[in-house]
């Protein structure tokens, strides 16, 4: 008995991810049932919206769409210009990634770690390390995949760090979660680093986990504690970590590219 227990405690070394994945598949029905009441309440709420509300919402959406398409026109021109310039520099990269839409299960997990469960799993090709976005920014990454569901660690989890750069000047840093509270912090930036309140942080794409250029958050406060070598910089995440119901899973193109590269190098050898 005790030996079995110790055996499983070793799971921190990640030997048990297949076991875990099987067990997660087993508990998935329980999780789905637990999320039913709030799903139903959303559904009922949607169902009983009256005509006036729907029309109002429709006008707002139409206006938003118009605005977005105008911006998009400009963006497309900029994108093309950017690609052209990059081609001149000899370093082109893909700007567009394909995405997969998933829904959150509305259940509560351990309140001491920031995680959510989504309803897409191995069947849809979700993999560990895949980055998860919502409509306003990066949410986190997939840590565990079972057949029908997968677990996502949010940016605010204390064990999570994400490589970012400041959109204004390209300064690179790592944003880590703090656990309790909804802020991130920028680590290891000296007092004289060029950071200002209101700066937008985007993913830098270093480390190869997250696609480049998605918004992560904005700097909300900067402290320079005396006698410490690094500044304390608090960042508010751009994604609505607490309220999003639908998330996007990024399907990276780069995977294919690296595969191709490796086959090329094998051929060369």
């Amino acid at each position, binding site marked *: 008995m005790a030996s079995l227990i110790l055996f499983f405690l070793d799971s921190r070394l990640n030997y048990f991810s297949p076991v875990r994945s099987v067990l997660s598949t087993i508990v998935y029905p329980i999780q789905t049932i637990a999320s039913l009441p709030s799903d139903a309440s959303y559904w009922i709420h949607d169902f009983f919206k009256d005509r006036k509300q729907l029309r109002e919402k429709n006008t707002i959406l139409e206006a938003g769409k118009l605005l977005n398409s105008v911006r998009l026109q400009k963006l497309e021109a900029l994108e093309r210009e950017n690609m052209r310039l990059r081609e001149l520099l000899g370093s082109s990269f893909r700007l567009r990634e394909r995405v997969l839409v998933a829904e959150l299960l509305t259940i509560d997990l351990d*309140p001491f770690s920031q995680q959510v469960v989504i309803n897409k799993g191995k069947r849809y090709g979700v993999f560990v390390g895949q980055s998860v976005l919502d409509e306003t920014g990066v949410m986190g990454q997939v840590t565990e995949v079972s057949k029908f569901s997968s677990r996502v660690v949010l940016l605010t989890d204390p064990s999570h760090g994400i490589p970012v750069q400041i959109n204004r000047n390209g300064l690179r840093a790592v944003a880590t979660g703090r656990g309790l509270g909804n802020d991130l912090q920028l680590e290891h930036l000296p007092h004289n680093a060029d950071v200002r309140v209101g700066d937008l942080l985007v993913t830098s794409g270093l480390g190869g986990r997250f696609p480049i250029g998605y918004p992560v958050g904005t700097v909300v406060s900067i402290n320079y504690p005396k006698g410490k070598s690094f500044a304390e910089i608090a960042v508010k995440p751009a994604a609505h970590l607490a309220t999003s119901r639908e998330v996007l899973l990024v399907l990276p193109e780069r995977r294919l590219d690296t595969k191709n590269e490796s086959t090329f190098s094998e051929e060369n050898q």
Partner: protein
Amino acid sequence: MATYKTPQGGVIIVFSVLFAMLLMLLPLPETLRFVRPEWVIMVLIYWAMALPNRVGVGFAWVVGLLIDVMMGGTLGVLAFAYALVIYLVLGFHLQLRQYPLWQQALSIMSLVLLVHIIAVLISPRTASWHVWLPAVTSTIMWPFVYGTLRKLRRTLKVS
């Protein structure tokens, strides 16, 4: 001569545990998240106390493992904690049955605290004072759990 009764109502035990699991997962408002009572261990303790020949350490271990997976914690932490607690309960279930309800509730508090101490010691989670709140709420909820499950056991003749 002790007469052996054939055990029955295993389904009820399993369903009560599954229902407790649902309660563990049910979304709560942000402020209440930290005070969620430990429903599953309370249900397990009740069954171990009332029917020690039915619910044992192994069952508790499996349930704990499932909860570990469900909550995304380190695998085996809660399995170990639940198994240990049920082992203790089996050790003094006869005394526990004789206690008045408030004294039982206090024992529950110490047992739930034990679960949390183990969880904090083993898994790398952020330890804050919030960790101790579930023990208090579990103590408060114990009379209800006890009453409900006893009624369930008597009316459905689980033995």
